[in-house]
């Protein structure tokens, strides 16, 4: 009862402490619950969706003419394979939606409700329709939901498919949750047609506009489920399936792509939550130490009345825990609002409708662990209570000197500085240890807001290519191998007439097996379009290859090693001469020269040309002109606004990143505001008596307020400087670690005035604001009350 009485009165009289700790813990609980629920919820949703849809363990998209019966038998005979299913599929040379060409490789398949069992989304994409019997009618198509944002299409829009018999139109009837390749980050998609429609399309495949393909669904024995990559490799060794396919992917790889972005965002927010937690601990330590100092007499009185140090420490502990528990409960409950919001942001990227799935148990567990840490740390920091001697405390005698004189600054020296500045410098130099925790907190906040700013800068689409070393173009011309070169020359002349061509190159992509593992290969005719490699050099000869750092780690080979590339039935060895960074395919890709590709396919011909023009803003206009000018050639070639397509391609990812960085920025600013307020208040409480003394000897309120404000700002700026230095040292490494899943192994922070000044200004503004508000008491309270209150 005695402890409860003291606890109740402390909570009542020190509401400020309680509220600030409550707010901090609330923010952490809200963030953590959201992160855990979104990442775990997405993974769970994906697992359930894959099980319901009977997604195979390994899926290969292969041209029908390359899939022989021997190959099928060979697959079945491979160790660990339990079932092989072949589905017919059709690929068109051109698929458009609302007149805009679709950038994905689109595989059209017959929808089988018994087999596919995909969830159908309702019209506003907020939930599922509970009708398992729904299937596309004739001239209708079901699309993965990622199309809605990526291609900006809606139910009722038309999709156009090029065939030898003209363009066929299909109405978008439903969006579905396709858990296999439905994610927005993968370049391959399955779309679903009526069985009758499929049969008609298969009948009119001509190998030019409409291609017959097979989808090979391979089910693996349960014992081999943990090593699908190894099974895929052995399938290729036995049958060459992977080398002959357009693309072969395991369920594990597909799931990784689907959840890639969620994991990256989860990683960034988790790092953020950890930093915030460190700040909480520092603030608690600061508050506890100041509290003991300020309540020295009270603690002495309690001790003289018979309270033990353990009891007094327990009261303090319970105060902070009470605030923590309340903050946790309200934070977790509030996450019910944020979770569906974040899931909605991620829907176009993952292709999964996760909704309100809340991982309560895990969140409570995580917060419980953090509260335990807070309790333990608080108990440690209250050790100062042990040193309080009752008699000494009551007679207002303090413990021995607690000021450090190691960096003393004398105000009696005849220096050309105003007295106020001398006093500010003296206070900081003489009490530097006291300001350390503030400097640390401000440093962490500055570090984090600079990191978030650098991430946001990187994701501005005009920066992305530069940031990650991607090759971009303005206008792409796609053509068949038989297209007349005179036609291509005339297009080039037209472009030059509209604007100046700055650069022209050929860049194409193929999935090629490397040491029996499939990777995305880029074939180039000019090496000067590649950015400077991270290590080594760019290939000069046809037997040289440059791979990404991430791919190098994957295959366990580096500069100087030889790797074997297989494409179709051919293979050749290449030497790794350099390591670079290139974002496509989660950073696992390589570059070879056109001459190098011809070692694998002597008949290989380029089927696209890319142009960079002087004025990128003219791209849309030029492309429109060319499409009109050469509309009679629309079956032979495709003219694409690559500049816009590139922007659109990144759009959903960049939107999601922008949203997440905005959220973290807001939270960082909130934290900054709360921390500035608490620390300012603590500073003032400590110095109130001295302020009263100074006022009594003739310092004006404004002089004293000015000193207080300047001092606080100096400390905050020192913290900002520390944060900047730490950011320069560690940000690249931290970002590379967090973004490695995306393909960025080598993040380079671009420091600019905005990057540095905006976070420091933000932090300084709050510090100044609260210093001005809190120091107002110096003006409003008489000297006597300042001293004696």
């Amino acid at each position, binding site marked *: 009862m005695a402890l409860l009485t003291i606890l109740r009165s402390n909570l009542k009289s020190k509401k400020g402490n309680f509220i600030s700790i409550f707010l901090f813990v609330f923010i952490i609980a809200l963030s953590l619950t959201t992160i855990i629920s979104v990442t775990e919820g997405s993974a769970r949703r994906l697992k359930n969706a894959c099980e319901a849809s009977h997604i195979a363990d390994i899926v290969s998209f292969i041209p029908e003419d390359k899939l022989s019966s021997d190959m099928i038998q060979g697959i079945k005979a491979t160790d660990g394979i339990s079932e092989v299913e072949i589905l017919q599929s059709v690929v068109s040379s051109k698929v458009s939606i609302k007149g805009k060409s679709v950038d994905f490789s689109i595989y059209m398949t017959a929808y089988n409700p018994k087999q596919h069992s995909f969830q159908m989304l309702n019209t506003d994409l907020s939930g599922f329709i509970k009708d398992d019997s729904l299937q596309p009618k004739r001239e209708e198509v079901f699309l993965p939901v990622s199309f809605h944002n990526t291609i900006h299409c809606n139910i009722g829009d038309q999709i156009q498919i090029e065939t030898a018999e003209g363009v066929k139109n299909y109405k978008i009837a439903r969006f579905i949750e396709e858990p296999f390749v439905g994610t927005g980050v993968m370049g391959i998609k399955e779309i679903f047609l009526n069985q009758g429609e499929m049969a008609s399309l298969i009948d009119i495949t001509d190998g030019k506009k409409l291609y017959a393909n097979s989808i090979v669904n391979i089910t693996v024995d349960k014992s081999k489920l943990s090593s699908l990559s190894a099974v895929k490799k052995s399938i290729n060794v036995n049958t060459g399936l992977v080398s002959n396919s357009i693309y072969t992917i395991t369920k594990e790889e597909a799931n990784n792509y689907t959840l890639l972005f969620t994991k990256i965002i989860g990683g960034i927010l988790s790092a953020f939550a950890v930093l915030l937690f460190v700040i909480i601990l520092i603030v608690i330590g600061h508050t506890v130490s100041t509290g003991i100092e300020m309540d020295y007499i009270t603690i002495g009185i309690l001790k003289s009345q018979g309270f033990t140090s353990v009891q007094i420490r327990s009261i303090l502990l319970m105060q902070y825990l009470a605030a923590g528990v309340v903050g946790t409960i309200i934070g977790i409950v509030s996450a019910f609002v944020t979770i569906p919001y974040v899931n909605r942001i991620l829907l176009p990227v993952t292709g999964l409708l996760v909704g309100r799935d809340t991982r309560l148990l895990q969140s409570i567990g995580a917060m419980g662990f953090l509260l335990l840490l807070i309790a333990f740390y608080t108990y440690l920091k209250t050790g100062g209570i042990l040193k309080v001697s009752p008699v000494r405390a009551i007679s*207002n005698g*303090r413990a*021995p*000197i607690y*000021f450090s*004189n190691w960096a003393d600054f*004398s*105000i*009696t020296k*005849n220096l050309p500085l105003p*007295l106020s500045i001398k*006093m500010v410098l*003296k*206070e900081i130099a*003489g*009490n530097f240890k006291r300001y350390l925790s503030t400097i640390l907190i401000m440093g962490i906040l500055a570090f984090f807001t600079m990191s978030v700013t650098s991430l946001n800068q990187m994701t501005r689409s005009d920066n992305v290519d530069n940031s990650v070393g991607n090759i971009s173009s303005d206008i792409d011309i796609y053509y068949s191998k038989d297209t007349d070169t005179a036609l291509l020359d005339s297009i080039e002349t037209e472009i030059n007439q509209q604007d100046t061509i700055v650069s022209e190159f050929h860049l194409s992509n193929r999935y090629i097996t490397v040491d029996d593992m499939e990777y995305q290969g880029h074939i180039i005719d000019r090496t000067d379009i590649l950015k400077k490699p991270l290590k080594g050099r760019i290939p000069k000869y046809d037997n040289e290859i440059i791979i990404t750092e991430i791919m190098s780690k994957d295959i366990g080979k580096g500069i100087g090693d030889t790797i074997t590339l297989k494409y179709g039935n051919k293979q050749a060895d290449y030497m790794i001469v350099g390591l670079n960074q290139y974002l496509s395919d989660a950073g696992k890709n390589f570059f070879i020269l056109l001459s190098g590709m011809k070692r694998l396919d002597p008949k290989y011909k380029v089927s696209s040309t890319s142009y960079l023009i002087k004025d990128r803003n003219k791209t849309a206009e030029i492309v429109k002109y060319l499409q009109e000018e050469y509309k009679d050639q629309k079956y032979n070639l495709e003219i694409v606004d690559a500049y816009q397509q590139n922007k659109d391609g990144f759009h959903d990812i960049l939107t999601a990143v922008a949203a997440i960085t905005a959220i973290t920025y807001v939270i960082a600013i909130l934290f900054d505001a709360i921390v500035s307020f608490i620390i300012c208040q603590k500073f003032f409480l400590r110095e109130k*008596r*001295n302020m*009263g*003394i*100074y*006022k*009594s*000897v*003739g*310092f*004006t*309120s*404004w002089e004293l307020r000015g000193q207080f404000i300047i001092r606080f700002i100096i400390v905050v700026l020192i913290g900002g400087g520390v944060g900047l230095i730490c950011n320069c040292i560690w940000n690249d490494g931290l970002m590379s670690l967090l973004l490695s899943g995306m393909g960025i192994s080598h993040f380079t922070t671009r420091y600019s005035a905005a990057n540095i000044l905006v976070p420091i200004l933000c932090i300084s503004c709050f510090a100044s604001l609260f210093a001005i508000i809190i120091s107002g008491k110096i*003006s409003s309270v*008489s*000297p*006597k*009350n300042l*001293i004696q209150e």
Partner: protein
Amino acid sequence: MKNILLKANDLCKSFAANGLQNHVLNHINLEIYEGDFTVIMGSSGSGKSTLLYSISGMDTVTSGQVLYREKQITGMKEKKLTYLRRKDFGFIFQQMHLVSNLSVYENVTVPGYLIKGVSVKEVNQRGEQLLESVGITDLKKRLPTQISGGEQQRACIARALINQPVLLFADEPTGALNKKIGLEILDLLTCRNEEGQSILMVTHDIKAAARANRIIYIEDGNIVGEMSLPNYQKDEEAYAERQIVAWLSARGW
């Protein structure tokens, strides 16, 4: 005819706590003269410290006027009041109240640096002289927590005198000290008064009161008596104390 330094007209001071009004000073009328060593006496809770703080501008008043050299200081703008505290008034507190992170020397000289037109060198020289006059020159580099209560109070006296104030206010300057040290402090103050310093001191100590030439007795926020004494003489100290005791006893002390 002595000059009036401070005059209080119908001074009232009340405190509000939990909705209740506590009237500490009731319509006080008072004059403080130049050159006097005036003591305000009263029992605990009589309002003597409140009167000192109210009349010196260190605290606000509820109603009434305080005039310093015929200029009204009640209701004066805070900045002007501060300048008054800076130049004309000096304060000595019961609990010393030295700034804890300044050395003794810095505590003494800081108020001096505030005066425009006075060089740092001049202030430092004056500080050295004052420290010597109060006998703590060798402690000047120490922090307040490194010296005794008596030494702190000497430093406070030196600080209060750095700008050569017209009037020195002291709130029970010997209250936190033992008898021997207390007497030393009183000797310093008496010495200053003999040199012409006007002092207004609050005390409940008869020995301290015996140093004064004028005693004002306050009870329950009202001035109930005033006594004049000849200038302090060491060999007549006991007699003065007996006179004071008799006078106070007649007033219910």
